[in-house]
């Protein structure tokens, strides 16, 4: 679950990472009222997930309440477009923050290193720009440290990284505590990534997180119900919301660009099915893993979800029975289609494994033609999609 900047900063404050003073606002009136009460220069930052928001015009500066209100009206509802996100993203809220006088900008992040099976810290004195760009042009400027989760964080790690990355002297006193707090957040909230870019040293000597990028592991969200609720308040990922709504796992459904709907049991088989469709000359319209032991009801809901995409011109259901029983799946498919309230598309069903014979018989009786292999099924689905309107 990726968090918006204002949500990330909420977590920062919980663990004691300093953030700029400010307020979260969803209306221009809120912005106006806030600046009237707190006169001064304020930054209006559009709350969007996409990168490149500054260049896209999503950040504005206001010196008084009137200007703040006008700019907020411009921003809220505006669709920002950037190189990273050509489709654009609508601004629904703003973060109003103090304008800080920047003396220096650093970068710090913690991510999971899957190979080392440890959290890895990245620090560079070249903050405020894309870290991948720094990695390309000046890789030695990025210093890394792998933290052993059995021992955890200790301040020497922050001290060493600050020296090694040549952070300006003003950072040195605060940095070990900031990194320690960031590690606490990373482990306690279960983050795939926490990134502060830039971590700002102000002219008056404060060290503050000017931006916040936080991506939380969906599997750990149950530990923090209040944070998990942010997702349902504003579902950042429509696919995830759709999957959860029908009782699938959060990452078991992803909408793609092709014309052939896919339902498979198992993530690996789902990916394999997408690949088989491409090998047969088509493109999958989605990824959908109905998981093990799928019941008729879930098959129907999955079918409805996939066919709700108007691009879908044929459906390929690929079931290799391990735990999932073929007869149950077959009944689910028949039930999904006999209701009359479904969008009918040409349907290819590949069924094998446990109780597959009975499953094929059920499908036969219902008027479907099951196929034997994944390759055959993909080829049939691609042909049917090309032939249908």
């Amino acid at each position: 679950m990726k968090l918006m900047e204002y949500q990330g900063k909420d977590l920062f404050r919980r663990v004691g990472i300093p953030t700029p003073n400010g307020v979260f606002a969803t209306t221009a009136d809120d912005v106006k009222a806030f600046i009237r009460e707190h006169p001064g220069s304020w930054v209006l930052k559009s709350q969007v997930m996409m990168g490149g928001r500054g260049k896209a015009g999503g950040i504005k500066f206001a010196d008084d309440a009137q200007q703040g209100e006008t700019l907020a009206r411009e921003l809220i509802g505006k669709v920002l477009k950037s190189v990273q996100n050509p489709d654009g993203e609508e601004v629904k809220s703003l973060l109003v923050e103090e304008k800080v006088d920047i003396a220096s900008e650093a970068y710090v992040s913690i991510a999971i290193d899957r190979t080392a099976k440890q959290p890895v810290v990245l620090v560079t004195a070249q903050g405020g720009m894309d870290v991948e760009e720094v990695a390309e042009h000046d890789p030695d400027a990025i210093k890394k440290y792998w933290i052993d989760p059995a021992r955890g964080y200790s301040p020497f790690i922050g001290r060493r990284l600050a020296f090694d990355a040549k952070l300006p002297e003003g950072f040195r006193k605060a940095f070990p505590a900031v990194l320690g707090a960031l590690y606490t957040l990373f482990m306690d909230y279960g983050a795939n990534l926490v990134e502060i870019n830039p971590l700002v040293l102000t002219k008056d000597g404060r060290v503050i997180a000017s931006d916040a990028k936080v991506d939380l592991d969906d599997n750990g969200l149950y530990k923090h119900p209040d944070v998990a609720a942010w997702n349902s308040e504003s579902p950042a990922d429509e696919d995830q919301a759709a999957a959860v709504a029908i009782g699938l796992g959060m990452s078991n459904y992803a909408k793609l660009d092709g014309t052939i709907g896919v339902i498979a049991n198992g993530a690996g088989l789902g990916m394999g099915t997408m690949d088989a469709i491409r090998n047969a000359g088509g493109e999958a319209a989605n990824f959908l893993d109905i998981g093990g032991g799928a019941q008729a009801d879930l098959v129907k809901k999955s079918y409805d979800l996939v066919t709700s995409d108007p691009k879908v011109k044929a459906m390929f259901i690929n079931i290799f029975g391990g735990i999932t029983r073929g007869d149950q799946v077959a009944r689910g498919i028949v039930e999904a289609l006999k209701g009359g309230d479904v969008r009918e598309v040409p349907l290819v069903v590949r069924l094998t494994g446990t109780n597959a014979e009975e499953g094929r018989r059920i499908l036969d009786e219902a008027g479907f033609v099951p196929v034997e292999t994944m390759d055959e099924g993909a080829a049939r689905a691609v042909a049917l999609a090309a032939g249908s309107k």
Partner: protein
Amino acid sequence: MAIFLDKNSKVIVQGITGREGAFHTQRMLAYGTNIVGGVTPGKGGTTIESGQPVFNTVKDAVDGTGATHSIIFVPPFAGADALWEAHDAGIALAVCITEGIPAHDMLRVVATTSGMRIIGGNCPGLISPGKSLVGIMPGHIFKEGNVGMISRSGTLTYEIVDGLTRAGFGQSTCVGIGGDPIIGTTFVDCLRAFASDPETTALVVAGEIGGSDEEDAAAFIKEHIADKPVVAFIGGRSAPKGKRLGHAGAIISGNTGTPESKVKAFGEAGVPVADRPSDIPRLLAERLKPVPA
């Protein structure tokens, strides 16, 4: 010989009276797995219908049965605790079927359970065909033989194994390592074990997008496996960037985890990458041809 698991391995089931645990216990027993007991807190002193004793703790189960292997069927929030309990009781190999264990729990577990091999989480388990099954795989599609098989997936493994068996390629051991970002046993760990297993004469590595486990596997093969032909497969080659596809670990983020990088790495190690699972038996047969029978 096989790896990690043979006919005599004594296995306990953590969560033996739960729905999944009970169901798969019977399947494993039917396959011939030497299941010596199980654990369900509060049900110690009883036996399950097929006669195996139930213990309150893993320690009691190990003391009472001499078990070395454990298979874990517990909810995600209890996954780390179950693994620590197994480690504490001296279990040598734990297969963790549970899907959805937080990655940070696994970071802590992996860092604190040295001496115990963990397979998974989020995996279908482990099978040495004809000998023992410690997992949820459908045993009937496997056949005893000499191909070592490693995979990140469940059903895709079955798809590939089914093709191998139909083509006459039996398997020595098949390890489903799991689809999560942090897993106990990686491709390289399995390859290292297969490299010194005389019964394994060829290998199939079924990876997928995300992470760099496949690249590490390719590098290991290049360095250490000269005498056993390897065929690879990468699932999700048609996947777009940034979409997480079912497995928590199956995501291309930035330039990491791309299929291109994995195909290239295997290519550099002289390992052919099958375009489709159905091509794997043919590629394997081609690679085995020059070797006199």
